[in-house]
């Protein structure tokens, strides 16, 4: 009988140890060694200059379905941090990345963002890919007045004071792509997307745009994330025979869709597919021969012809292997680190409010060209590029805007979008 009690006692003991360990770990996190803790207590005001590193958080999915895409963004961010450190760091201090795994699970993103801000007290977080992960982190960074650099193109309709958006806003990717298609490929459109916020919102904007241009929308289909059977959709496409398929599918679905489209005998000569979530990395998975000749719309390709890009691609491949490809989100993750570092240098501190103020109008020569932070919405000016997939898996540019496009996440500049953005004004 006593042994059973012993068991309960043991649980109690374990629980106590767990809690003590946790609180000890907390203390340890706050002060790496006791002497330093004493030192910082003595001179509270000099706390910042006492530390010789600046912690930055990196929060991408390293496991789960998104890992394949997000791992390369993480690698690019680490590369940027390494380069900055070799150049002497920021404010004379080395950057110390704290890596966490978002595990392709949105509540985990919220938990880890909380941990990075509260526990590690990082100066900024670089992270996220899906809109859902960004939306999960948004209340956390706003509550703790942290910073988040988000590197992926998205659906717009958002401008948090605590987030810098280094990917494209809809007017830097989708709107110009539709314009270009109307001019060059015809005016009957078929919209195909995965069933979540980005494709739904993007297509709502495209519908309004097509309506305004007097173009024809012949079909609109959504499939669940991870869907792999596109025969019914392709049958519908054959039936309607559009000039253009505007593709907002995400992830594995693209592999299935393009294979089945090719098997159905539809080539890029018959119908042009323009994708906004397929970059060099995804083409590797789909197979260049399958998707060859179809189009994409991004701000950056591995083939983009700038001296900065040549150096970036060389460094990236040196670090991660000859076969490693760079792509738009990878590049956006990379220059996001530089933009932040520059803003911190400008502000002379890592204090979030001051960094935000200093970041307004900052420019950087990124691999895709000059990027400038728009102070009003914390998105960046970027060049828009339409490209065609080549047989070697690279994308060659067909068209680009003459200069970087001003970001317009709420599509305020477009009359046809007034209904859209009006309904969103909370």
């Amino acid at each position: 009988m006593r042994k059973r009690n012993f068991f309960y006692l043991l649980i109690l003991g374990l629980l106590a140890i767990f809690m003590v360990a946790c609180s000890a770990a907390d203390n340890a996190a706050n002060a790496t060694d006791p002497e330093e803790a004493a030192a910082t207590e003595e001179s509270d005001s000099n706390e910042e200059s006492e530390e010789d590193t600046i912690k930055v958080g990196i929060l991408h999915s390293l496991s789960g379905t998104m890992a394949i895409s997000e791992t390369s963004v993480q690698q690019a961010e680490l590369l940027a941090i390494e380069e900055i450190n070799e150049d002497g760091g920021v404010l004379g201090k080395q950057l110390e990345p704290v890596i966490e795994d978002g595990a392709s699970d949105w509540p985990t993103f919220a938990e880890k963002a909380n941990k990075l801000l509260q526990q590690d007290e990082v100066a900024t977080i670089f992270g996220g890919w899906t809109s859902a992960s960004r939306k999960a982190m948004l209340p956390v960074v706003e509550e703790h007045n942290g910073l988040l650099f988000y590197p992926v193109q998205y659906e717009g309709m958002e401008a948090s004071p605590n987030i810098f958006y280094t990917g494209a806003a809809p007017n830097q990717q989708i709107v110009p792509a539709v314009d270009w298609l109307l001019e060059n490929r015809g005016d009957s459109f078929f919209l195909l997307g995965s069933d979540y916020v980005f494709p739904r919102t993007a297509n709502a904007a495209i519908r309004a745009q097509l309506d305004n241009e007097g173009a024809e929308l012949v079909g609109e289909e959504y499939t669940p994330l991870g869907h792999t059977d596109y025969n019914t959709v392709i049958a519908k496409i054959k039936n309607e025979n559009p000039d253009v398929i505007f593709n907002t599918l995400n992830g594995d679905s693209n592999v299935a869709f393009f294979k089945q489209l090719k098997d159905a005998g539809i080539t890029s000569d018959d119908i042009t597919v323009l994708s906004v979530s397929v970059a060099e990395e995804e083409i590797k998975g789909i197979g260049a021969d399958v998707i060859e000749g179809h189009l994409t719309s991004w701000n950056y390709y591995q083939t983009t012809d700038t001296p900065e890009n040549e150096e970036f691609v060389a460094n990236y491949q040196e670090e991660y292997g000859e076969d490693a490809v760079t792509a738009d989100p990878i590049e956006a993750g990379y220059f996001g680190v530089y933009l932040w570092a520059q803003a911190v240098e400008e502000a002379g501190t890592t204090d979030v409010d001051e960094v935000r103020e200093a970041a307004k109008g900052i420019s950087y020569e990124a691999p895709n060209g000059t990027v400038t932070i728009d102070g009003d919405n914390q998105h960046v000016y970027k060049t828009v590029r339409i490209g065609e997939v080549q047989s070697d898996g690279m994308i060659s540019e067909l068209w680009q805007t003459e200069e970087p496009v001003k970001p317009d996440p709420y599509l305020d500049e477009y009359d046809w979008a007034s209904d859209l953005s009006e309904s969103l004004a909370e």
Partner: protein
Amino acid sequence: MQNTIYQKIWSQRVILNLIFLLLLAAPLFLSDFRLNLLGKFLAFAILAIGLDLLWGYTGVLSLGHGIFFGLGAYCMAMYLKLEATGGGLPDFMAWSGMSELPLIWIPFQYPIVAIILGILLPAIIAFMLGYLTFRNRISGVYFTILSQALVLVVVTLFVGSQNLTGGSSGLTNFNTFFGFSVNSATTQTAFYIITVIVLGLVFFLSRKLVKGRFGKILVGIRDGENRMRFLGYSPSAYKTFIYTLSAAIAGLAGMLFVLQVGIISPTMIGIIPSIEMVLWVALGGRGTLIGPVIGAVLVNAAKTGFSESYPDIWTYFLGLLFVLVVVFLPKGITGLFEKWNDRRKKQDVSSSVEVEKSYS
């Protein structure tokens, strides 16, 4: 003999009370972030108790508790979302082309209604499914498959109706709860305390339930359903009741989860989390009530701990932990102690006769 049993109950109760008090006192020595994590684990522990009633005591394996958890969570999240928009249209509805608040969202403007529905809704769905399946004597693997199918249906529905549920992004960005800021440290501490109290209550009431005559009937159904039927009991009624009860407990846990984590999305209620929930119970030791609580806290603490220390390879550690426990501790962590006790008893034959607890 009488004396020792009395002693056993007394001292167990004392230790359980001590654990409870220690949990209550946790805000004094844990940082806000760790406290928040512990609160989340304890919300999971509440669900695990409900699942143990169903699986451990009644022998009905449900791989679909994620949706009951999710329903509770979504009910609470809908209220919080409406509170955050001040009764206006949530942002995702606007994107999806809605112009006014849909009918099913209207009751969730009232917190009390939302809380009641968060418990009632899972209970009603479980009752309907349970009534139809158990009455038709669908049990064992067939029931498990059905429960899993229910998850698929509900998750597909939730992801598909983006205009109503926020789709795969789920619901997040909350503001206030009964007028208190949900993100402030004080409110979070209060949520933690509420979670601990609810856990204590659920544990205490479940213990009362299974220690009595009712619990014996449940175990009877688990170990010999037909015998119980021949004895004049109606196993389907008992099973339906327990299934409904455990769904209600799961809904309760879901509400506490949302308050502390601040987001709910279909990834939290799908097939993988549903299986994970069963793993907590199995790991802790089913049919013990305390086991699942330990399992839920331990597995989730391990998950957090591993992923913080080894963000690249933590999933392997977690997998290894599962394999080790299943291979070496088939009866879970509590089983380890039972085994150890048995061995001690064999060495010490002179100790008094004890009624062995039976396991299927």
